[in-house]
């Protein structure tokens, strides 16, 4: 076997070893030395009109405070956010009859306290291209199991009977014709619905067409129901909520967010600065008076209190950038970079450089000197090894020590 084959096979061996170690060693490090990542649970007090922060600490228990620095007990907090802790207050017999002059009951709070959470992990994923569709006006009181799925492609909306795996041409033609009549441009940009039969009513799907226009599509007695919602800018993502007044939330190409109101039939802008569904997590904990919206990303979080009827901003808070944990600081002096195949923000397996640290250059040079010392007799042949160790640091040094020949 020739010399070239020997060199090529050695290069492949080292390359595979360096790639594997640059994933494995940082993973092992962070697995062995986990860092705590505490983020406060924040609610907007409908009575005091201020944010109440609850922060869990492994040493000091729960710390509850407001932005003025005033600390509260758990009982104080329950009274400050009576809508969220109404059950607890009822158990103690101190639940208020009215909040802000409005008579409240458990039923009112339960029906008007929406919780929504949208994670970039659900956006950055390959999702099925067919969707279950319910009958929105079933003969029985409860919703029935779906019998068909639909797909939207360049040609229109196609219905497939699940039992026979065949196209329902009649329904496909009816829905396609109705969508075209309402101005839908095929194919769809984003489709979102909740085909769960345990819910009481079905509002079908929110669909953004190829031009960024929003439509509600549902099946009523087997026939198409299509409603178009006007928007100022082309829309990008939609999230169905099926609340009594809010059909869903949508974002446009500038990351502005809107509520799709049912009674007014239009989009109302939410009083948040921006929300990028591909990179940020959206959490809303609402009550009949206010929505507390938390938008978080790698750098920290922003909180907005919105009026539950108008969605106008009432208060806001922006967290300080979270400090780098000490274990990560140490890691930056050991590892010149890290390759990871997975991320909390998506459902893809793909190699990505998580960080590049210049701090590791000191260790890299030290390891290169050790390498040069060990292999000093090989003369010029050590140069590639020294260069590799300076660039790849510990990830190259380990294979060089193991595969000495």
């Amino acid at each position: 076997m020739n010399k070239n084959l020997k060199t090529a096979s050695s290069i492949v061996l080292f390359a595979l070893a360096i790639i594997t170690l640059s994933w494995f060693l940082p993973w092992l490090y962070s697995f062995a030395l986990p860092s705590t990542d505490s983020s406060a649970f924040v609610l907007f007090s409908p009575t005091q009109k201020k944010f109440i922060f609850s922060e869990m600490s492994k040493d000091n228990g729960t710390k509850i405070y407001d932005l003025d620095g005033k600390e509260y007990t758990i009982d104080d907090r329950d009274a400050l956010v009576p809508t969220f802790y109404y059950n607890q207050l009822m158990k103690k017999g101190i639940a208020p009859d009215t909040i802000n002059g409005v008579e409240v009951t458990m039923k009112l709070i339960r029906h008007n306290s929406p919780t929504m959470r949208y994670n970039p992990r659900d956006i950055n994923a390959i999702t099925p291209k067919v969707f279950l569709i319910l009958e929105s006006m079933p003969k029985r009181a409860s919703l029935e199991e779906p019998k068909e799925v639909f797909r939207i492609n360049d040609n229109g909306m196609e219905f497939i009977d699940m039992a026979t795996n065949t196209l329902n041409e009649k329904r496909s033609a009816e829905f396609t014709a109705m969508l075209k009549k309402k101005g839908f441009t095929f194919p769809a940009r984003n489709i979102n619905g909740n085909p769960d039969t345990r819910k009481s009513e079905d509002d079908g799907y929110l669909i953004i067409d190829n031009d960024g226009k929003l439509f509600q599509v549902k099946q009523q007695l087997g026939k198409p129901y299509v409603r178009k919602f006007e928007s100022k800018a082309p829309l990008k993502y939609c999230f169905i909520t099926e609340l009594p007044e809010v059909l869903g939330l949508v974002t446009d190409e500038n990351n502005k967010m809107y509520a799709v109101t049912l009674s007014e039939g239009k989009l109302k802008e939410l009083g948040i600065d921006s929300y990028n569904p591909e990179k940020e997590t959206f959490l809303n904990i609402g009550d009949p008076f206010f929505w507390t919206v938390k938008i978080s990303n790698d750098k920290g979080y922003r909180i907005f209190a919105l009026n539950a009827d108008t969605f106008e901003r009432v208060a806001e808070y922006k967290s300080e950038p979270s400090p780098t944990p000490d274990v990560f600081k140490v890691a930056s002096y050991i590892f010149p970079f890290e390759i990871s195949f997975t991320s909390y923000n998506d459902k893809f397996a793909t190699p990505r450089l998580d960080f590049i640290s210049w701090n590791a250059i000191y260790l890299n040079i030290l390891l290169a000197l050790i390498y040069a010392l060990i292999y000093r007799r090989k003369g010029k042949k050590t140069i590639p090894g020294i260069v590799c160790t300076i660039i790849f640091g510990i990830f190259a040094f380990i294979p060089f020590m193991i595969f000495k020949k």
Partner: protein
Amino acid sequence: MKKAILYKEWIKTRYVFLAALVIALCFAGYAMLNINRLCTIKGVSHLWQIILLKDNTFIDIIKMIPLVIGAAIAIAQIYPEMVQKRLKLTLHLPYSESRMVLDMLCVGLLEIFVINAITFLSLALYLNSLIAIELVSRIMLTSLPWFINGFTAYLLVSAICFENSWKMRIPLILLAIGILYIPSMQDALEAYNGILWLLILISIACIMLSYHSIIRFKEGSQD
């Protein structure tokens, strides 16, 4: 000479190949029977719903089968060469050494390809009779990294078997574990669609590891 080498490799691996084919088909058949059972009891619509709402592929049971088959064929083919010290003799035959190694590996790879292709196609055709093409491709694309892992496992285990020294064999085993773990890092469906080319590239690169082991063998590296 080439025919003789190919025949020699076939003689060594034929029983393992046939056993692996039967095992792969048994597991694929079990997955199909499981789907059939669900469809009989709950209806085909229920199958669609679970695939769409629960992200269930129904063929997860075959996930490790290609890997095990790849490793088994490599052991059946290469291990006797090393234990019975036949490799030295093989390398002295009047035939290009590098070509000889490649021919040997190609026999194993071809056998794995046949087993994987039959398993893959039987599952795809069965699913295609029940569910929409979008869902068939979703499930089969999710399973592709498992099948590619079969080829990678074969090449890595071959390199480990060709290696004559435990000092080198242990790092190779650790490297093999790291590489073979890649298709198990992300459970989400179709998560590997974007890096199927990379998995194939890694698999092809692993051919070089066998050469590395044989070059070391020729140089006399041993414990």
